[in-house]
Each structure stands twice: as C-alpha cells, then as structure tokens.
C-alpha cells in the first residue's frame, strides 16, 4: 500500500505572495497567477509576468487536470514514521511549462505511468490546502 505522503507534512509559511495558492483548495479549485496581457500562467508567484513583464497578475482557476512528467517512490525514512510514498512532477493541462512537485494518491506505485492523466485533490493541514493528484477520470483525450 503506497502512503498518501509523508507522516508529517512540513508546511509553507504563508505570505501575501503565496497565500492565494496555498489556500486555493478551500473551494476545491487549483489556481495560478495569470498574466492579463499575454495570458501566461505564472508559477511560482512573481510581481510581474516573467514572459512579457506586464503587471496586474491575478489568480485564476485552472481545470486541475494534468499529466505526470516524472515520478519516484520515496523509501528512505527522512521523516520518521513514513511509509513509502509517491512524489511526482505534474504539468498542468493549460500550460505544460507550469509544473508542481506533488504526491500521487489513490494509486499504487506499480500502477503509475509517465504521462498518466491526473487530477487535483486537496489535503488540508492547518489551513494549508496541499494540491495532490490522483488518476483522472478522463472522458476525452
């Protein structure tokens, strides 16, 4: 049985730049900053669009769907009490250059494939909504 993640969640320190991201899952939606000019999604948060340098970036919801770019099962006991868990790099469907390091959940390690379609699910810890990903129920490619 592959664990959902480490036994202890080390959490981000929330600030005015990242709060929207780490609390976005409160309504079940994943959000990234988006540029009003060139429409690029920007991650991690930045004061201006790193592509076109426009100001006025604002969080926008995305579908929460993506694909597994790479995956690993952490076995070593960095965090005491942890069972092996899946770490993955997931690119979002809207803009594959935006990636998240995350945990794959509701899936066994042997069933994970590179390129697999996944969808976001949130685990809440002390007001932080961690975006994790599970295999997607995908109807169309």
């Amino acid at each position, binding site marked *: 049985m592959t664990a959902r993640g480490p036994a202890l969640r080390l*959490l981000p320190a929330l600030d005015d730049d990242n709060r929207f991201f780490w609390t976005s899952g409160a309504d079940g939606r994943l959000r990234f900053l988006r540029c009003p000019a060139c429409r690029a999604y920007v991650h991690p948060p930045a004061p201006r669009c790193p592509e076109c340098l426009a100001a006025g970036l604002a969080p926008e919801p995305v579908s929460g769907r993506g694909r597994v770019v790479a995956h690993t*099962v952490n076995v070593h006991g*960095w*965090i005491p009490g942890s069972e092996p868990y899946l770490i993955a790099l997931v690119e979002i469907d809207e803009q594959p250059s935006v990636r998240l390091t995350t945990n794959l959940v509701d899936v066994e390690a042997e069933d994970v494939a590179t390129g697999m379609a996944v969808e976001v699910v949130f685990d809440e810890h002390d007001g932080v909504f961690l975006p994790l990903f599970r295999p997607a129920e995908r109807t169309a490619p």
Partner: protein
Amino acid sequence: MSPPAEEPLERRAAITGIGQSAVGRRLGRSGLDLTVEACLAAVADAGLTRDDIDGLATYPGMGVGTPGFAGPTGPEVHDALRLRLNWHDGGGEGPGQMRALIAACLAVGAGLARHVLVYRTVTEATAQGGGGRQGIGGDGGGDGGGGVPRFSGFLQWMLPFGAVSAVNWIALVAQRRMHEFGLTRDQLAQIALNARRNAAENPAAVFRDPLTLDAYLGSRMISTPLCLFDCDAPADGSTAFVVSHRDYAPDAPRTACHVQAVGTALRGRPSWDQFDDLTTMAARDAAAAMWERTDLRPADVDVAQLYDGFSVLALVWLEALRFCGRGESGPFVADGTAIARTGSLPLNTAGGQLSGGRLHGFGLIHEACVQLRGDGGARQVVRRGGPPEVAAVSNGGGPIAGALLLTRGRG
C-alpha cells in the same frame, strides 16, 4: 557561437598548488582544523608561503544548509592564517561549487590578486553521525517559530510533499531518463561500480571494498530508481587550491594545471522543478558555454571528473559535455570499458564522490590536477605514453552547474 575573439580571461589563471586534508568518515576534527591543513598543503605545494597569498575564495561561505555542509567561513580562514588579502570572496550562489575557483581565476585574470587560495570543506559525516545523509528539512530551519517550522522560498514547493532531499529531486531526473531514453538500472550501476574500482586505488577514498552488480541491485532503495549506491557518502575533508597568474607557472615547483575555459551559463529557469528539460537541467547550459570558450573539442579530453553526487548526474554530464549523444550515456557506460582507466574516457579516477567521499565538487577538481601532473600512482591514466593533457571537470546537479577545462601545458 564561435569562440570569442579576445582570449577568455580565465585562461590567464593556472592551478599551481593543490592540497587535501585527511579525508574520512567521522574524523571528529573541526572544519577549520581540516581547512588549515589543506590550505597549508596547497600553499607549500605551490612553492609559496602564506605571505604570497593575496586572495581567498570559498564555497559556500557563510551560509545555512544541513550540519557540516558549509565549512568555515572566509573570514575565519583569513584570520586563522593571518592573511593579507587584496581580494576575497565567498558565496553559495553561482555555477556550482566551483564558483569559488572560477571567481579566483577571474580575480587573477583581472589583476585583483596574484595567488588566490581556494577551499571547500565539509564535515557532514561527523555532523550527521552514523545515520548518513539528512533531508534538507530535517533540521528545521524554517521560520514558523515554535513547534514545527514552516518554510519559504523554493523549499515550500518541495517539503510539504515529502520531497525533502536532493535525492528525491534527482530521482525524478533518473526516472524521466528511463522513460525518455530507456536508461536501465544496470547502466546506472556502471557509474557506481566504476567509481568503486577506482577508489580501490585511492588510499584517501572512503569506500574501497569491491562492489558487485548484484550487491548494487540488491541494495535498499532510497528514492526509486535510486538506491543506496547511487548516492554519495557524507565525508569529512577539506580540499584547497592555489590559483595563480599563469606567469608564475614556470616558477612553480610542480606542473601547473592551466585553465583553458570555464562554463558558467544558466539559460533555463533556475529551478529544480520548472527547468525546461528535466533530463539535462543546468548541466546543458554550463557545458555548452564551456565549449563556446575554447577551440578544444570533446575528443581532445583525456580524463573526466564529472559530478556524481548521484550516479545519474554523471550520465547527465557525459551527454551535456558531448562525450556521447543526447540520451546515449546509458549505452556509452553500459559495459564499463569506455569509462574505465584504460578506456576512451577515464571517468572519476579517484572514486568520484560515490566512493571517494562527498567532498562536494572540489575532490573532482583535485583529482583532475593529480592526473594532469601524473601523480595518480596505481590509478594514473596514461595517454600517448604520458599523463593526460586535457581534463574536464564538472560540478553540480539540477539547476546548479559549473564546468571547467584544464590543460597540462599552457592553453
């Protein structure tokens, strides 16, 4: 891009002295003690005294990191040796651990100093006890205040998901290479096995017992597909160099190792998870930049000391430095002959970091000089009846990368 018309500034520099402290697992000595030992050895090796040293550089200098990572600061060494400096520098940001050496080359080239002492010291084995490598988040260091700390900066995107060690981040690189290029664990193992074979001929190496493919494949997983033997070992030790203006080389008592070119580029995003090509990351840019600064070509390289903090990184560097094609490093190392001491490209001839110990980049530079000088003893590489003439060195993994090309004669 064609080589710049003007001679690269770093070519005015040469490594005229090398020194290394005792190296081992849990020496129980202070970082400053080890550093002074290495520095004095390097100064004497260069035929100089401390009064000749007018520059000092180190990586990472005053900094954070897991226990035993940083070593003594520049000011501590400066004062311990009562140096009188015209130039000094320390820092953790830049083209890999060798950033300190590159900075020294530029300082010498610019005339800011004539003889720069450069060092890197680790006491990770003593600091971490017998438990081995620590996770980045394992010692706290966040800013939560009370209870479990919270994390800012790039660690906030990693630690919440238990991606607490560089091995996790590099395991993703290895897995992606398996997916894209068909890399196998047997091929990955060759980096570890080659390192162990070479370490057997290096009295200072921390692991010298024979390692078999079966033992490799049977060892415990750390973060798939990387097992115990894919990870370097925390060590204690200090490595030091004297970087001089090349005009001093003829007067130096030992063969000078001339700096032909350095590679410092980082053209992709400086990020472990947002870099455009996960299979190469920053090695691609640093290696390309190095070749842009020299007329030498990959085929001219006689010996390579490539960063192997994790085995897969050596494969990444083999491709980045164009010793083989993109995605072809697995087959290139597959039977171990090409990278053996008698092969076409002898690799990590002192055991690398995997078996030599995690001297964090500087051990690789040291071994390049040993080989160019012909001081390798039982592990000496022979080319055209003599020592190698050209050595390639790389430092770093993920978004951290620096490359260096050294020559025995003046470039």
